[in-house]
């Protein structure tokens, strides 16, 4: 999954890919990491995944929904991030407003996990959110979570394997409800997080959005892609996956994004695509692979449509998957307003 030669090639293509995952749906209970008190009150999240000069920028927000204790989620990542830091204040809201009437945005809390066999690559804290980047297989990450007092939802073994086959990197995001209360955070307060990941091709984790839910539950999400040119994607639109918007990004949007904290990398021109997910968890067994090179060949392996090892998953694809999946896992019951 880490092919620097390929990455360089794609970088030279100067492709920018952005992914924003949002939700207009009511609060949904979802969490990959369940605290000892059984708390699973994590809201859905909105995410921007952008790709430029061989670097994936992932911005998502985690919303405080009240309550004490810890709860969070696990997010598969395509590669090792170089930084995890506070994100800009309005990037996510601005992206959603570009294609839709003003509505609610969601942010997601995340949880950290690790154990024997798991290598902790990065740890940081943003407000009441503890973020840990782990390297290890699904079983190792599950063990790490167990050792940190979290219980994994019953679907976690299969979902973690689904991602671990392509990348051993996961982000554990744990929201500390007690710390949030001590900080005076109000219900609905979001914590934006910006993750930077060097990768070769965009990838948006969609299946992860169903983590912690039952097969009959629904997943409703918006995925925004920002690319240098019209993107080639897999899978193609189907039941539960539709293209809602596809047009050149306005200069005003790009200017607004570029003005936010840590967003000066946003290019002068880009193509904005919005995909809408409305699927049962049982049917959402794929991710979104994007070919950012302009060659029109998105990876079936990256999309999870065919089994492939880490070498078959484009770096960028993995990165985007990470970005999109994290917020979805962390947040439940979050709304954009």
């Amino acid at each position, binding site marked *: 999954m880490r092919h620097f030669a390929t990455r360089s090639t794609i970088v030279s293509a100067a492709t920018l890919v952005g992914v924003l995952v949002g939700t207009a749906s009511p609060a949904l209970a979802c969490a990959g990491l369940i605290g000892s008190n059984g708390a699973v009150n994590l809201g859905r999240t909105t995410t921007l995944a952008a790709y430029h000069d061989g670097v994936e920028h992932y911005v998502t927000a985690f919303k405080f929904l009240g309550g004490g204790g810890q709860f969070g989620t696990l997010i598969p990542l395509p590669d090792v991030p170089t930084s995890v830091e506070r994100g800009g204040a309005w990037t996510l809201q601005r992206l959603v407003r570009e294609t839709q009437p003003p509505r609610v945005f969601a942010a997601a809390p995340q949880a950290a996990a690790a154990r024997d066999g798991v290598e902790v690559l990065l740890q940081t804290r943003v407000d009441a959110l503890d973020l840990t980047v782990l390297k290890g297989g699904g*079983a190792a990450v599950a*063990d790490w979570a167990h050792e940190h007092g979290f*219980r994994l939802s*019953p*679907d976690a*073994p299969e979902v973690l*394997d689904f991602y671990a086959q392509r990348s051993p990197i996961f982000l554990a995001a744990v929201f500390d409800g007690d710390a949030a209360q001590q900080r005076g955070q109000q219900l609905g307060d979001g914590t934006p997080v910006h993750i930077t990941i060097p990768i070769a091709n965009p990838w948006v984790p969609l299946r992860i959005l169903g983590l912690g839910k039952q097969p009959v539950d629904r997943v409703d999400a918006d995925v925004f892609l920002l690319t240098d040119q019209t993107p080639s994607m897999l899978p193609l639109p189907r039941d539960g996956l539709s293209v809602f918007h596809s047009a050149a990004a306005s200069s005003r949007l790009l200017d607004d994004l570029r003005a936010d904290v840590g967003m000066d990398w946003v290019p002068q021109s880009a193509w904005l695509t919005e995909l809408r997910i409305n699927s049962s968890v049982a049917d959402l067994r794929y991710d979104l692979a994007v070919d950012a090179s302009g060659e029109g060949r998105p990876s079936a392996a990256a999309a999870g449509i065919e089994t492939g090892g880490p070498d078959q998953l484009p770096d960028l694809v993995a990165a985007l998957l990470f970005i999109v999946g994290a917020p979805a896992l962390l947040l439940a019951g979050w709304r954009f307003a």
Partner: protein
Amino acid sequence: MLGALLAGLTVSSAPVSAREAVTIRFHYSHFEPSVVTVPAGVQVTVTLRNDDPIDHEWIVGPPAVHEVHRHGTEAVHAGRATEVTVPALSTRTTTITFDDPGEYAYICHLPGHEEYGMKGIMVAR
């Protein structure tokens, strides 16, 4: 109370002298196989192999037993052959005799696991 609920089941943790043996694998929070047929009146050694990285439990018995567990019992099961906690990536063995023919469901009653499909049926003939 559980004793009454388990009428028709004789349980034993004694060393295996069973004439029947079955293995049930836990994989992706499902039991494999989900239907097991065993002879009634004969000791059956059940090997429970949890291949998942998360804990599971295997509870077998008539409907009333499961109803009790759906509302919560002890967090970890030990000392009762029909109720076995199987930690992540581990194997446990238990021995049971089904005195009466019939169908006995086996279910993992950890939160959300039954709803996810972690259940099966043991048919005693």
